[in-house]
């Protein structure tokens, strides 16, 4: 495999068979980092933490669904519990997507590279909440009436977009494993996972078209995603400039930049 991402990772081959998991490392480096050698230290420092941190993060990420489920069981979701579940799972999908997409900018701005370890997990929780949202819609709201669902998806654009958004999340969830990163190569994998931005746009418009009049909440999410995508656009421009300047100095650096593009 002549994948530049591999060379960008820079570690000796044995790092792949290291007893402690390399995947987040692979992922963050292959796809994002500009400075392979220095990044290692930070990731390494956070490592011990992630033993506690990951299970803790999983528990935290399950709090919203637990609260919704508890509310459902104890009849505390208000007068229209199905709607409450539908809106709750939908909102948490957008929130997890925003948190997932915020990891890289946060990491770059703070230098906390250990954050990268949580990114794929958060992405999977986005898919988890999106799937719950779909199940509540299809199973509870439409009570699995296939005719009604098909009609709804075809006739009502906001439903169409929501369904499309979920469909686009499926390949991202499937390829979220380390094996798939290897199979696709970091660069192609990263490119595929840019679909997350498309999903962010679809999800926001889905929300915007749904509300009757008060669009302040959808606009809030539009703003959040706007900032997150805007950051990436600026970062990419800056990276390209830096790379252009660096050409005479170091060819290797150029390749790294391309790999992380």
């Amino acid at each position: 495999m002549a994948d530049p991402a591999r060379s960008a990772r820079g570690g000796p081959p044995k790092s792949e068979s290291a007893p402690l998991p390399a995947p987040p490392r692979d992922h963050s480096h292959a796809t994002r980092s500009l400075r392979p050698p220095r990044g290692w230290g930070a990731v390494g420092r956070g490592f011990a933490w992630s033993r506690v941190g990951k299970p803790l993060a999983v528990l935290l990420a399950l709090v919203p669904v637990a609260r919704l489920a508890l509310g459902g069981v104890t009849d505390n979701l208000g007068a229209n519990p199905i709607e409450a579940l539908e809106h709750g799972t939908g909102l948490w999908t957008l929130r997890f997507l925003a948190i997932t997409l915020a990891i890289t900018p946060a990491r770059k701005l703070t230098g906390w590279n250990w954050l990268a370890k949580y990114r794929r997990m958060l992405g999977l929780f986005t898919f988890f909440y999106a799937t719950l949202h779909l199940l509540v819609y299809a199973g509870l709201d439409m009570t699995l009436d296939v005719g009604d669902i098909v009609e709804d998806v075809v006739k009502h654009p906001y439903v169409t977009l929501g369904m499309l958004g979920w469909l686009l999340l499926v390949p991202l969830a499937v390829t979220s494993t380390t094996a798939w990163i290897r199979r696709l190569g970091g660069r192609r994998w990263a490119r595929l996972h840019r679909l997350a931005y498309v999903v962010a746009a679809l999800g926001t418009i889905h929300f915007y078209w749904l509300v009757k009049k008060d669009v302040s909440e959808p606009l809030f999410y539009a703003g959040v995603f706007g900032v997150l995508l805007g950051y990436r656009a600026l970062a990419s421009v800056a990276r390209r400039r830096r790379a252009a300047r660096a050409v005479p100095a170091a060819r290797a650096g150029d390749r790294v930049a391309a790999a992380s593009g």
Partner: protein
Amino acid sequence: MLFKRPPDYRSSEITPEALYLDRRKFIGIAAGVGAAATAAALAPALLGGRGGSTGARLAGGMGEQKPDKLTPYEDVTTYNNFYEFGTDKEDPAQNAHTLRPKPWSVLVDGEVARPATYQLEDFIKPSTIEERVYRLRCVEAWSMVIPWNGFPLANVIRRAQPTSKAKFVELTTLFDPKQMPGQRSGVLAWPYVEGLRMDEAMHPLTILATGLYGKTLPNQNGAPLRLVVPWKYGFKSVKSIVRIRLTERMPRTTWNESASNEYGFYANVNPEVDHPRWSQAKERRLGEFLRRDTLMFNGYGDQVASLYTGMDLRKNF
């Protein structure tokens, strides 16, 4: 003609028996009074109502739908669209304490011989408060069954003596951002205004409510005085009314003004005419799991369909 065909629901299924008998009596009286006192132009529908026989006819319907159960008081008073207090359903119950429904006055003016400002007590006094159990169908495809306390809007209109120019009735909500904090936002063009055609306003099913479940109307439900038009989507039933104006021209109405392709002036419940963004064929009755089929005119077709004879309801949605 009013009450000609049997209705979709047995009224006895909707209403507790005692109340139901009251209502029968009421409709009888209203129809009788209406027929006697009102010009044909104002209430053509009423002319068909023949007092005593009405109740028997209403009771003779075949109820294919599941019976209506009252929506619990808790749900009726915590799940509200009342943007003057916020746009979430829970907002009005939390925020409407700032509304001061006492003292309250109502202005009746426009195309009437006797315009006047009434203190609320004087406004209500001439009418007998009746209990009416109505289905409420929201344009958002959910519904409730609510026992209202109120009196026919027709009483008020008759007292004001409409002129021959009076073709529509415009009803306006209080405008006071201090009492209604939601009015500080520009989400709708305040004050909230709704309107009815004269024959719709004079129809015996159209009431001004002062209470529900036998209690004073809670602020979040539109205290102290709100409209209830059971065969139209809920947004027609304007809350916290301060002005009733009779007009020659069709009044501007708030939701119609905000999105005219989505919310029409008539806004009759109609399962065949979808909202552009969602279907109106079914509805979720709060408290029920399976959605119900939405009924034409919210199940009040026998009483009101004749008002729209010859009208294209797809165009006049």
